[in-house]
């Protein structure tokens, strides 16, 4: 084959992603040294982490789609093993579900690769890049190939409709695994390949762009609405891992340079804050022994550093300026606007979904912060022994580094991530439609904080006295039932007309591809099973019926 000898190749995009892969591998190993102490099967655990690291590097640098899919498919095995190591009862079921969803879409990818090879005449990423000729998405075959390859990236990154493994896996596995795979590496790989597909291999049409944007918007809203009503810390974070992918797909789907840069930037930002959230959640889990939101509460006092990192990461994911999540969302919005200038009016829907989704994200994280760190401690949390209950340095260091990067990537967005990573990766330097001066704005915010401190100082703010909380004149300690855990804050949303129907269906897993698929498969096999009852007369009847049909067909 012409050009097949080029097997591995590094360009700016793959180098950027590889650096992040390596960075997260180091952080997770560091965190695991503290978090996994005393656990069994550590050899397998660290082995899987290393293999995942190497496999991801292979996939990122592969310059040939066949080789790429080999690495990509191989990554499913350590993923399966790592999720299966979780301590939850359902862990092995979840691992199987993940493996089937990821493996199933990998089969689609193979099919897509076959069609692509037939159409283009070669499986090389290099040829697409060097010739600069991308396949137009005009023929049915090209569209089929694109959709097949897309399904793999969607399952890996955890977008609708193949997202259902992400919340399950986040809940059932160790927090470090959740922070490593669904939150960081799988996003990096999934979106990396989506970029390759969309920018280099295929030439997008407006219809396909609209499809991607619709998919992104639905992913944002559906996942964040599910996150609002969750009762488990890690599962809630898992739904946000899904929701954030929506922004990346939306950004890349705009087809505008600004939106694509925003999508790529958001991918980097998401890995930072989402990993930080999972790691901080894991630290709380280690202290509390549970991730049930109803049984947590009041951990800010015991774990101030963990709370600080969690708060920064929450503000970043909710898109509060000047943190990094805002910078990338802001670019994606401009991408949508840029796309909308030339298209129909649908862009308003995508933009409103993305912006309202960010308010819902904020709401969901406020609930989480209340239920885990603020609010009143649950009876269980109040009884924890010891004065210093903060995690050890091995666990704190990665969290602090990630939280610091959330600030740095937000405030110095232009001079560090955009200039060094994002713009070189897409070989473009787009003009912004809007205006955002993060350094100056941060400066203003700090001045504002200073002004507030001056007001405190003018008054007697430091002259504090501790009192009992005022609850209508009653003593709070006497009424433990008065505790508001925060788990049910958004029951109002769940009870809204129309939404309540959707939530009920979602509870029955009507939107879970895996579950619906399993039901279909089992009902099919039940029909076949009913035919094979093991009774001789019935088999004879089938034979007779078959013979009659054959006879009829022959005599006709």
């Amino acid at each position, binding site marked *: 084959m012409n050009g097949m000898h080029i097997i591995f190749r590094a360009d700016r995009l793959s180098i950027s992603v590889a650096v992040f892969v390596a960075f997260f591998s180091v952080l997770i190993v560091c965190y695991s040294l503290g978090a996994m102490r005393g656990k069994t099967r550590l050899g397998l655990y660290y082995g899987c982490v290393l293999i995942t690291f190497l496999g991801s590097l292979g996939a990122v640098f592969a310059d040939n789609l066949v080789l790429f899919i080999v690495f990509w498919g191989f990554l499913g095995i350590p993923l399966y093993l790592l999720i299966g190591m979780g301590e939850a009862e359902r862990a092995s079921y979840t691992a199987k579900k993940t493996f089937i969803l990821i493996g199933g879409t990998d089969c689609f990818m193979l099919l897509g690769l076959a069609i692509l090879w037939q159409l283009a005449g070669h499986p090389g990423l290099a040829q697409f890049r060097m010739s600069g000729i991308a396949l137009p998405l005009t023929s049915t075959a090209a569209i089929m190939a694109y959709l097949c390859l897309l399904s793999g990236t969607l399952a890996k990154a955890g977008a609708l409709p193949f997202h259902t493994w992400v919340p399950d896996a986040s809940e059932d596995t160790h927090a470090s695994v959740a922070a490593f795979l669904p939150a960081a590496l799988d996003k990096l790989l999934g979106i990396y390949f989506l970029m390759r597909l969309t920018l280099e291999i295929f030439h997008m049409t407006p219809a396909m762009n609209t499809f991607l944007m619709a998919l992104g918007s639905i992913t944002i809203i559906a996942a964040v609405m599910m996150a609002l009503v969750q009762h488990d810390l890690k599962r809630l974070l898992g739904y946000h891992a899904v929701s954030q992918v929506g922004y990346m797909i939306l950004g890349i789907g705009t087809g505008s340079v600004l939106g694509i840069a925003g999508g790529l930037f958001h991918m980097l930002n998401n890995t930072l804050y989402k990993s930080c959230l999972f790691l901080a959640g894991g630290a709380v889990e280690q202290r509390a022994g549970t991730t049930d939101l109803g049984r947590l509460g009041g951990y800010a006092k015991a774990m101030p550093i963990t709370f600080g990192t969690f708060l920064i990461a929450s503000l970043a994911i909710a898109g509060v300026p000047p943190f990094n999540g805002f910078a990338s969302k802001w670019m994606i919005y401009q991408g949508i606007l840029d796309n909308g200038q030339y298209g129909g009016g649908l862009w308003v829907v995508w933009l409103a979904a993305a912006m309202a989704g960010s308010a819902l994200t904020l709401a969901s994280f406020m609930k989480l912060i209340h239920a885990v760190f603020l609010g009143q401690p649950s009876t269980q949390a109040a009884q924890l022994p010891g004065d210093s209950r903060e995690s050890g340095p091995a666990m704190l260091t990665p969290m602090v580094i990630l939280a610091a990067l959330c600030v740095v990537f937000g405030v110095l967005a232009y001079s560090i991530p955009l200039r060094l990573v994002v713009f070189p990766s897409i070989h473009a330097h787009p003009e912004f439609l809007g205006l955002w001066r993060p350094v100056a704005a941060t400066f203003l915010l700090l001045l504002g904080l200073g002004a507030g401190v001056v007001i405190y100082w003018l*008054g007697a703010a430091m002259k*504090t*006295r501790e009192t009992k909380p005022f609850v209508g004149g009653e003593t709070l300690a006497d009424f433990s039932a008065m505790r508001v855990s925060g788990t049910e804050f958004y029951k109002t949303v769940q009870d809204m007309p129309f939404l309540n129907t959707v939530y009920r269906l979602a509870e029955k897993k009507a939107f879970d591809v895996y579950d619906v698929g399993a039901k279909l498969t089992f009902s099919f096999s039940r029909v076949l099973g009913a035919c094979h009852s093991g009774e001789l007369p019935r088999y004879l009847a089938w034979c007779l019926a078959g013979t009659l049909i054959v006879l009829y067909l022959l005599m006709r």
Partner: protein
Amino acid sequence: MTYLMYIGYLVVFGVAVTAVIGLLASWIDRKVTARVQYRVGPPLLQPVIDLVKLLGKETLIPSGASRTMFLAAPLIGFASVIAVSTILWTNSLSGGRSFLGDLVVVVYLLAVPSMSIILGGFASGNPLASVGASREMKLVMAYELPFVLACLVPVILSGYTLKLGDIVGYQTQHGAIALSGGGALALIVCILCMQAKLALVPFDAPEAETEICGGVLIEYSGPVLALYRLMKTMLLFVLPFFIIIVFMGGLRLDGIHLVLFVLKYVGLVALITVIRNTNPRLRIDQAMRFFWGPMTVVAVIAVGLALMGW
């Protein structure tokens, strides 16, 4: 150089002018409310006296509260209001050029004061504050959707720009956005969202004195409460100012336009006062349904009209 300029704008306009106008507006609000209820009402300096009095009181911190967060939360909200105010002033006083941030930045920063109140309420460890804060959060979720849609109307009409300077520039040439059909509807939506952002009746469920004793602010006292009060007072200027910029032609300093600006501002404050004095409090689920239902529909119609150029 620019940083010196920003400091100047922040101190003079962002803090001082905004606070003075806000205090004046809150006096108007209280005076009008009193007159509606056949009371005499407070003297002009009463809002200032209230703040000074609070500054002299000691700060009570409930046992079980997360101390740092409890004290830091008002600072976050206060800083964001000052930042928004400075952004709006620099963009208005620089004659069409844009500084610091665009519409998206302002919309996002305007959600931070609510967030700071929520964090403060959560940190106080009081169940009533938790309930109030959760209501505030649900209110934010509810009004953010129509608010975002309504804010897109000026973007569409002024030719797909997010820069505040360009939106004002468009209005200087073509007349105020609010004079178009879509703009008028969007303005109505924005005014009601402003009412909710200020947590005033009918959307005062988060504070609901008679139900949850002030809700989010129940444990706050002394200088910390003064800071929240000052933040809300300043919002009473910043929010109408924002609406005037994006819908009603913005601030122009030449002669008659300055008078018109004052009239528009006083009109908006009077409207806020009238709405809050003539309505009962909505339950939080009713408020959510109001924003996700009729208000979103109106906002969508406004966007549709704007896309057709009306």
